[in-house]
């Protein structure tokens, strides 16, 4: 296998897009190609991550459409749909193409235009990833699953509403430093939890989760250009090496798990990624975790091996995961505040980490970041992709 590097990275500001799905993807693909400094070289393949184009935007075969829109023929093109893990799954496909020698240059673009429909339909669309007979038909949505998960986690590990709010406040604060973040709004513990008005400012969504515990519905796209490390060196690009990717699955229905608070697929995916990278969680300097709900940042930080089970909230409390802490988590603002256009999310996490490793993250730069970790969480933890990136000097 050849070593693979990321040589180009770009994303749109998440939020609401006024352009079509494919044009939205172009808005990150073009700057990523430019960032890669390809000159007259052309990409061999385009891999697109998208979850809802067929249903929400009446657009299928999105990768073919993107190739056409950018005149990238005869590049191979394929669309990957893997729920909210579509982004990092597409990235994995691109990685495999380079590593195997099937391609020398690959464009990976994730994009979603979810605000084309109202919130109820967007929620229903995302809920369609749940088990059709065991969950969906009973009205299960992702917020409701996350609410059940959170309640159990609180009972078992002592996580409190205050811990959840601390994740939200931290990630909103980080997003204020990220010009690409959807929500650029400072929030405070007083305003969302302690004040008598907090109950109105921050209403219940799915007990015990409140509005500020949930990510927004976003449009957006993110793109990466992959090459072999050898080619990256020839092109004179800074080398961000893909040190390891791990993927794991778990039962479709959450109720079938022996312990529903055990996010086994996160643990297994992380272990595989770290094993391939020959690194351990203690070696990581910055991480992007899939905090579609605040509880997930805490739970994933434990399952990925950064903190012992049940100790993630304590680390949060101590400031370990804040931007100036020992292991900053979600410096981008995370899904919580940067936004969560489902197909784009996994790619956008890696875009942020590439910028961090190159020292290009501006005000939210994690000093001296050399090794980075991403967790892209599909379904309700039934399909997870973990990635370790390393800066090579």
């Amino acid at each position, binding site marked *: 296998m050849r070593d693979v590097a990321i040589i180009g990275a770009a994303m749109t500001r998440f939020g609401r897009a006024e352009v079509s799905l494919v044009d939205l993807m172009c808005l990150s693909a073009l700057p990523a190609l430019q960032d890669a400094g390809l000159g007259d070289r052309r990409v061999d393949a385009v891999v697109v991550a998208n979850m809802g184009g067929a249903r929400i935007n009446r657009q299928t075969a999105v990768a073919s459409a993107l190739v056409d829109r950018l005149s990238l023929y005869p590049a191979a093109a394929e669309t990957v749909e893997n729920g909210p893990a579509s982004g990092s799954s597409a990235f994995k496909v691109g990685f495999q193409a380079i590593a195997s020698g099937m391609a020398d240059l690959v464009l990976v673009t994730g994009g979603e235009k979810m605000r084309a429909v109202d*919130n109820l339909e967007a929620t229903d669309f995302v809920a369609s990833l749940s088990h059709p007979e065991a969950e969906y038909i009973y009205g299960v949505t992702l917020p409701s699953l996350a609410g059940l998960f959170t309640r159990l986690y609180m009972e078992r590990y002592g996580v409190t509403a205050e811990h959840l709010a601390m994740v939200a406040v931290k990630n909103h604060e980080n997003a204020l430093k990220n010009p690409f973040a959807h929500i650029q*709004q400072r*929030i405070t513990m*007083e*305003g969302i939890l302690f*004040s008598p008005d*907090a109950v*109105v*400012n921050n*209403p219940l969504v799915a007990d015990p989760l409140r509005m500020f515990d949930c990510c927004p519905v976003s449009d957006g796209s993110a793109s990466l250009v992959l090459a072999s490390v050898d080619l990256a060196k020839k092109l004179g690009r800074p080398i961000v090496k893909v040190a390891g990717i791990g993927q794991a699955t778990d039962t479709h229905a959450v109720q079938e798990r022996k312990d529903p608070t055990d996010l086994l697929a996160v643990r297994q995916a992380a272990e595989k990624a770290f094993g391939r990278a020959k690194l351990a969680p203690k070696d990581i300097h910055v991480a992007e975790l899939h905090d579609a709900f605040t509880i997930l940042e805490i739970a994933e930080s434990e399952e990925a091996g950064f903190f012992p089970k049940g100790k993630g909230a304590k680390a949060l409390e101590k400031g370990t995961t804040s931007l100036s802490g020992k292991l900053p988590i979600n410096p981008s603002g995370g899904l919580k505040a940067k936004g969560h256009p489902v197909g784009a999310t996994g790619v956008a996490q890696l875009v942020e980490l590439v910028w961090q490793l190159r020292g290009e993250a501006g005000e939210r730069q994690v000093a001296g970041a050399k090794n980075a970790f991403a967790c892209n969480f599909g379904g309700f933890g039934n399909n997870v992709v973990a990635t370790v990136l390393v800066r090579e000097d």
Partner: protein
Amino acid sequence: MSDGSELEGLLRPPALEMPPYPPKAITLASGEEMVVRQIVREEVPTLLEAIAPFLWVERDFYDIVSARLFAELLAFKRYRVRDEYCLVGLIDGVLAGIVNGRADGPDRGMSYHTLSLRRGLRVGAHLFAAKMEYHVEFLGEKEVLIVAESPIGFRRWMIEYPLEKKFEVSHELGGVPSWVLTSKTYFAAKPRLVAGRRPVPGALLETAKIIKLPETKPDKAPAAERRSR
């Protein structure tokens, strides 16, 4: 021959005695304090200045809401609308949002508009709730007729409260079939949706004495841009 004041007497609608809206303070999600208070006619020109940049913003129907609100406040200033009032939300004295409406007799309110200049903090929702509070709790009306011009408004009012249909009555805003908030619905929703505390501490109230305009204007004016091409 009639002088100007006689003519004005003919043109000016009669007025209902309306108790004032007592100011209140709301802690926003950002931790900032927003003072909600009623304005007087002399403050209308300041509000018109704040509203004008939104007249060309199509996004979220800011254009139609702004244009109608502009006209309604002008009519309020020049006594050409009956029993209108206007509440504003001020953060450190800076205008964050405007709501208005009028009393349609002693028992019924007519909700006009809600314009949020500061987004992402439920400013519009807080101000709409304050407006309903005024109609039901201070004016003692039994019901308020409401329509929504934007999807956000529909979600915030019709769905969140929730409102009932009263489609047999046309609303003053374009003859659109009305929805209604009854006092029963209001009091049921109050714990969830109506925030704020009274009295407002003196120092905080002082910051809201003079309305300051926001420093930033809306991002773009799509309709105007298109016309100039």
